[in-house]
């Protein structure tokens, strides 16, 4: 049963952000390991298995530059492993949890990104997704010899990069690997297609707001197991995309927990009637009472080291209160992504008290068994854009 096809009681899914030691910049001080052990395979294994056994439907992996104010004491972790690789490492260790790395669209090569994500879909057995980011900062640009990108440029870069990915993922039709011994053909060349992406053609009216580029294709890897990986886009970027159907899910933030369900409902209202609507995933920071300490005391202790500023709604309190809040938000959203303040502390409480209670209430969708991320989102297997074209062409011959 998927989130979108359930008609009796609305059921949602829960995602867990697993980056670093948690959402709080001082989380490393409350972690159950030596600081250097963060950057290891063992750490990924431990956290992703904890998330899967707790019953989370998805894990996400943030990426991008870390706080580079290196000479200031008290700063958070300055190290971060590549997100696609973290998700890939987690893949063979897990069976059901969906694995979604954040991948930049501004300063990356779209061809590499598409190949890496398709590969992640193969190693995870169809459990991969793409959390699109487009921050465009000067520091990120300088690393690759480019300058900052802002405003319209960000949405343009993101839209172009997503389109490249989607074309390349379709550039091998599902039946392209024929292995036909009789004819000696491993591939059916008629089922391979050039992506022929060009920013000039893709942005005809207003033009591409940066230096244009093209990508030829076909992909160097067959079509992903899911056909197309689900693409997740933050709401502020989504609002600027030239074609909203580029996104399969939108991540929505609100300034407070009280406003979160409202924000979700408003977005849903705006999307209604405008074609197939993307799933809506609400963003929530979480700090729970734990280990004899109140959540508020835990935040205060961490804030004393490094203040925590962040535009997301934040829940600070008991497990029972969080269950109520999540039930309310999940009545409006398709899913909620939790950002635990401290992974090693909060995930334990979520696992022990929050997910079981939500499951008893029937609020949560079942976890996937041999399913794909698309299944979780209620998306069918997508048609291949080139298959229809080819079959049309063959009919006209």
């Amino acid at each position, binding site marked *: 049963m998927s989130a979108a096809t359930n008609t009796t009681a609305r059921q949602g899914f829960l995602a867990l952000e697993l980056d670093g030691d948690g959402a709080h910049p001082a989380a490393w001080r409350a972690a159950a390991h030596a600081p*250097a052990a963060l950057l290891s395979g063992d750490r990924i294994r431990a956290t992703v298995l904890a998330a899967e056994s707790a019953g989370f439907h998805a894990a996400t992996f943030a990426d991008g530059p*870390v706080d580079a104010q290196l000479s200031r004491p008290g700063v*958070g972790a300055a190290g971060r492993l590549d997100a696609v690789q973290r998700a890939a490492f987690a*893949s063979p260790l897990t069976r059901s949890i969906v694995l979604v790395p954040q991948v930049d669209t501004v300063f990356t*090569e779209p061809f590499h990104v598409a190949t890496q994500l398709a590969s992640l879909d193969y190693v995870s057995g169809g459990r991969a997704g793409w959390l699109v980011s487009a921050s465009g900062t000067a520091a990120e640009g300088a*690393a*690759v010899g480019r300058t900052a990108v802002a405003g319209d440029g960000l949405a343009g870069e993101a839209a172009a990069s997503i389109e490249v990915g989607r074309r390349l993922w379709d550039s091998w039709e599902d039946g392209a690997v024929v292995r036909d011994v009789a004819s000696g053909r491993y591939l059916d060349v008629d089922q391979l297609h050039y992506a022929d992406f060009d920013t000039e053609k893709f942005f005809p009216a207003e033009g591409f707001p940066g230096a244009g580029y093209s990508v030829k294709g076909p992909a160097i890897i067959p079509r992903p197991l899911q056909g197309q990986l689900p693409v997740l886009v933050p709401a502020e970027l989504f609002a600027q995309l030239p074609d909203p159907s580029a996104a399969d899910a939108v991540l929505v933030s609100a300034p407070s927990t009280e406003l979160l369900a409202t924000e979700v409902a408003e977005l849903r209202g705006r999307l209604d009637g405008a074609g197939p609507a993307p799933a809506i995933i609400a963003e929530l920071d979480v700090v729970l009472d734990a280990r004899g300490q109140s959540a508020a005391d835990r935040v205060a202790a961490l804030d004393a080291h490094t203040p925590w500023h962040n535009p997301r709604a934040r829940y600070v309190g008991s497990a029972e209160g969080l269950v109520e809040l999540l039930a309310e938000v999940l009545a409006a959203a398709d899913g909620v992504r939790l950002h635990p303040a401290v992974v090693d502390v909060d995930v334990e409480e979520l696992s022990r008290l929050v997910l079981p209670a939500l499951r008893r209430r029937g609020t949560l969708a079942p976890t996937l068994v041999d399913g794909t991320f698309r299944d979780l989102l209620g998306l069918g297997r997508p048609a291949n854009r080139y298959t229809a074209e080819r079959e049309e062409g063959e009919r006209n011959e």
Partner: protein
Amino acid sequence: MSENTEIGSGFRPSGQLQFGVFFQGVNSGTIWKAPEAGSQTDFESFRRLAQTAERGLFAAFFLGEGLRLREHLGRPHALDVAGRPDAQTMLAALAAVTTKIGLVATQNTTYNDPADLAHRLSSLDLLSGGRAAWNVVTTDNAWTGANFRRGGYLDHADRYRHAEAFVETAKRIWDAWDDGAIAGSTAAPGWAAPDSIRRVRHEGQHYSVDYVPRLPRSAQHRPVLFQAGDSSEGRDFAARQADVIFSAHAKFDAALDFRRDIVARTLKAGRGANDVQIMPASEFILAATAAEALEKKEWVRSLQIGPRQAIAYLEQFWGRELSSYDPDGPLPEIDPVVEETSETRGSGFHGAKARQLADQWRAEAKDKGLSIRQFVSAKTSRVDATFTGSYAEIADRLGDYARAGAVDGFNISPWLVPSGLDDIVNHLVPELQERGIYPTEYGGSTLREHLSLPVPVRSADASPVSAASDVDTAGDDIRLELAVRSQQL
């Protein structure tokens, strides 16, 4: 075997061999027509091959890369296995289901950014506990560049300078964190010690980098570097920068000559005679008896090069369709339509003099009485690199390599996926171990330890300096002309 197997120049043979396995993914050497041929993309194929190699104490699992799908006469090439996962993504997944084996990613310097590629390799190195390696390749053609924003912007000669500046920048990125940079406990004043991480800057002809590296050194300090260039410039590049050469010289005498040449170049580059190791590409066709092995070889060859592959191989040089020719008949009498074979198209024949070659080949085939199929099979079977025989016989032959120090090991391309290493691991490895020329356990936990490579010296500019520490490099380090093999591995 040559009379004089002495290497000289202070080189000390280790007396040992190491194996690597090369999962090719795109080539005519991997059989797909047999029922036991598995998937080229399913994770289980990769897992099985890597775990078999690890059971056989292989030093390394090696993945290739080609950044544009091969083409034949203007359309994707249909006859060979093709379509493979991204090397580093796959290796990161394999790192979770293996514990010892090295993980080698072929990655191109031309279509990557140094900061991004160095970061991802460093990430793989940490994830795997110090088992990552980079096989450095460069390509310069606009045909491949058409898949990239940055395009195919390098002049043929330029790519060599570009590659070395790239590798040196990567090394600086890997060396940018002091060993004690990360706090030893959660009570430390900060996660990273002040001034323990250096910014890396490079301003050059081809790219500029201004980057604060995001990862510390790994258990093996930094990824091991493989290199496959075979021209004089490529060999010099390897002598200066690489830890291991993935060579093309597996035949004993050629391997000895290659070793002597590399030792001389390595000494000239100011490194030790044993500092650069050599592992030639190779293929093993083994059985209990020599006769059975020969029979197996016939079977393998017939499946690698079928009638259509034989014709297609000639078409690459002739530049025209030859499907009306009988694969079991003589080579075409008509001439190639091109003066030179066109751009690489992923097949590695850049600039061959087509007409001249056609004349030569016709004469050669006529001389030896070979049909198209027989001729192409001989041309593509890498005669040098194939070891065919009984387990004991081949183990004896490999003993000669070990004693002389002709090579440090072999990088084996299995002709079947995923079962292609079973014979080697089950039968050849024990024979080699009995002869005392193959490890009986892993030499440690990192790839560098398995290969007994020296601990790398930190990049010269990477000694701790004060805040806002900058590592600058001016110019593109155009000290030397470098050659790096353009072949897409």
